[in-house]
């Protein structure tokens, strides 16, 4: 088994399939370029209000938690990029529903094709598609609040792991979108609640005590907090040692969520197939 895994030909073959999916997905996305452009602008709306509120807020209060006039834009730029990545979650149901509409999924699933290809195919194609606005906001953040090369790598690595977590969630949403639509909507609602209590666009310190207690139970909050702390502390080792729980949660979710995603996809797809033609 191990020999097979490290077999160069097998790896090449698998990569070739994932790349084929990426290429196809990117081409499908680029078919309607204006719609794609709109999808880049939309997350800006979600960070406009916090930018205005923060701007006014620091007029009266120079420091709120770790955030102040000098670094609050980093908070919102990271929020924008997280929102871009969060698009992966919606991308899975969208793509799988398109595949359902065209009935192309059976043609894939009867082939030498496993669900990890589907996961990584949509994952990488989304990264390719959002790369331009993502890099744009990342560079603006870098100019506004410069960080070391090592911190840049750590932040990009963390973003990558966050995207992987979102892909796992997306795959779960995707299979329910084609198999159990009611449950998909219910899950979407739950997920919205979880994201609302994860402090993507507003800092933890802004929320009242009771909500803070709820946020403290939300693993996503620790992940988003971790990436911001890496940036503003600009010393990954210090952030890692002072916030090791955040790091462990990140690694755990980045491994477990995609595995759960593939497992649930297999179970649900086998049990229900595609429902609702």
């Amino acid at each position, binding site marked *: 088994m191990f020999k097979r895994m490290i077999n160069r030909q097998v790896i090449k*073959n698998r990569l*070739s*399939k994932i*790349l*084929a*999916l990426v*290429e*196809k997905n990117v*081409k*499908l996305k680029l*078919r309607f370029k204006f719609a794609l452009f709109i999808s880049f602008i939309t997350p800006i709306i979600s960070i406009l209000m916090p930018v205005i509120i923060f701007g006014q807020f620091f007029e009266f209060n120079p420091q709120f938690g770790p955030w102040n006039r000098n670094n609050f834009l980093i908070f919102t730029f990271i929020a924008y990029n997280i929102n871009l990545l969060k698009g992966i979650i919606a991308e899975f149901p969208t793509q799988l529903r398109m595949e359902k509409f*065209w*009935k*192309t999924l*059976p*043609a*894939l*699933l*009867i*082939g*030498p*094709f496993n669900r990890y290809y589907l996961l990584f195919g949509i994952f990488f194609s989304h990264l390719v598609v959002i790369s331009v606005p993502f890099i744009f906001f990342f560079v603006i953040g870098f100019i506004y609040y410069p960080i070391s090369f090592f911190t840049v790598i750590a932040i990009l690595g963390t973003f990558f792991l966050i995207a992987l977590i979102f892909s796992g969630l997306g795959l779960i949403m995707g299979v329910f979108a084609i198999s159990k639509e009611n449950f998909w909507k219910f899950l979407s609602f739950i997920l919205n609640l979880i994201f609302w209590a994860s402090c993507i666009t507003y800092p933890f310190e802004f929320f009242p005590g009771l909500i803070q207690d709820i946020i403290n139970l939300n693993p996503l909050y620790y992940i988003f907090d971790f990436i911001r702390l890496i940036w503003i502390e600009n010393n990954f080792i210090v952030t890692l040692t002072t916030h090791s729980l955040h790091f462990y949660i990140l690694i755990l979710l980045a491994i477990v969520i995609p595995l759960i995603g593939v497992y649930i996809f297999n179970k649900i797809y*086998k049990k229900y*197939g595609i429902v609702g033609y």
Partner: protein
Amino acid sequence: MTQKIIETFDLTKDYKLKNGKSITALNKVNISIKEGEIFGLLGPNGAGKTTLISILTTLLQPTSGYAIIDGYNLMKNPNQAKARISLMLESDMLYYRITGYDNLKFFCKIYGVSNYKEKINKIAKEFGLEKWLNQYVENFSTGMKMKLAFCRTLLLERSIIFLDEPTVGLDVNTVSFITKRIKDINKTVFLSSHNMNVIEKLCDRIAFINQGEILKIGTQEYIKNLMRKEINIDIEIPKNKNKLKSELEKHNFINNIVDKNNFLTISLKKRENFKDLFSILQNYEVTRFIERESSLEDLFLEII
């Protein structure tokens, strides 16, 4: 053409309905198909054709029973079975928002087809699609989409090809083109269709399925022998058709009566029974009387 390449053993599939009850889509289906054979599955809508194909292509799990594809148990070794099959469903299964070429290239890469560029260009030329290959599939006509889907099925280089209603909605020319291509495939083909002509022209063996059960199965010759025993007569009768039908139904020399518009199609057991039939018909105003050879359609209507 000796080795059995597809075998099913008491294959059963139940679907749960909204009211909690279940419906049996396939009921203990046992079939076997030899390598290189073109096998036709005939049945009305909802007979279980697509369910059977979906199970044999690993898209559905049976409730009970099992199937063997080229020596591999479909339930235990689905990946080995998958490596031998390709599928074309009633729908074209294509990505409409990318070009025809990108569709074929994508599936070739997923299925690991080597030298796909040459193969795509060659097959596109054979199918008369070369000028359209770089256009979005959304601009293709229905016939062109089906041709492209068929190109994809052939390009994947699998030994067993499942075709579910490959000629639905196509014009006569395209049906004739696809029929000819299927005949020339030289692989094992499992074909389901409503189109009797296609089945009759193509298939080495035919199975009739209805309500999830295989009713008759055999070679074209066997099926034709079943039909030869009968004499089919179409009678046009504008008035008192129902009265004649009721009267004919009382006689045991008549095998079957099919009521269609102004016509009654009657199957006589023996040629000697003509005399008895005429004695009944002389009391009715018959405007046309046509004796014809039995077709697959006659048998289909009789069986179903």
